[in-house]
């Protein structure tokens, strides 16, 4: 008797799962989901996607070795020019609070001139920055710069990011101008 009850319950579960799958696929093909970047996710979806992203990046970057000379002046200089060429449009610079990209992209790109999570270890943050710059983030507008830039060059940008929040506009200008004849740090 108990066996038939379990079987009946199992059938109910299968039926419920089938209905959920059919409903989900139906919604997928219906075209009712708003895809516009100006139509924001609800709080639950945003939390789920943010958690997915943060946990994935933390796991994937956990084994990366941070160079011992990350804080060097040479890396700062090399990274500043690349940041100015590749990142400033979305992640801003001292004295600039918004751009067309920060206004239009969703999720909004982080303002890297602002100090990030103080509680996070510096090397953990450096590993995450390296991974994000190298691999990019799906469906966010963040490209994978690793496709055309070697690791050393990416670490230079990470080095620059570590000092960026404390830079004034004049300091940023000095560090981010690319030297004439400078072919970058490869």
């Amino acid at each position, binding site marked *: 008797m108990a066996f038939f009850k379990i079987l009946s319950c199992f059938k109910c579960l299968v039926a419920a799962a089938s209905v959920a799958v059919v409903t989900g696929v139906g919604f997928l093909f219906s075209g009712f989901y708003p895809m516009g970047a100006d139509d924001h996710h609800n709080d639950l979806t945003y939390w789920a996607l943010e958690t997915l992203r943060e946990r994935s990046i933390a796991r994937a970057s956990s084994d990366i070795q941070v160079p011992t000379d990350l804080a060097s002046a040479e890396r700062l200089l090399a990274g500043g020019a690349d940041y100015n060429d590749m990142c400033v449009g979305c992640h801003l610079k001292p004295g600039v609070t918004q751009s067309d990209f920060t206004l239009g992209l969703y999720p909004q790109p982080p303002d890297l001139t602002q100090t990030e999570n103080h509680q996070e270890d510096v090397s953990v943050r450096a590993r995450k920055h390296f991974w994000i710059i190298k691999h990019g983030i799906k469906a966010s507008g963040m490209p994978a710069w690793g496709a055309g830039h070697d690791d050393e060059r990416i670490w230079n940008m990470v080095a620059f990011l570590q000092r960026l929040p404390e830079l004034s506009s004049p300091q940023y200008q000095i560090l981010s101008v690319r*030297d004439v004849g400078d072919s970058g740090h490869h």
Partner: protein
Amino acid sequence: MKPQIRSYFVALPALMLALSAHAHSPDKHMKEAQASAPDCSMMEDMDHSKMNMDDPLTQAMMKKCMKAMRQNEGDSHDDKTAATKLSRHQH
């Protein structure tokens, strides 16, 4: 398919790949970046005795400004040399 047409199918993607590789070179970035010099007037106004020379940030700014200064001196020297040559040529 004719061999000539087939070769286009191979050559075109190869050409696009080569061009895209060049697009990411630092030289390309340099050309794209606005040509400008570091504005080191802030450094000149600062009291150097109060600057922390052990800080990589200070070291980086000093290096950048020294380099720019040397380049400016070199450029002005080149200009003077060129002007001298020009005046000699005119005489």
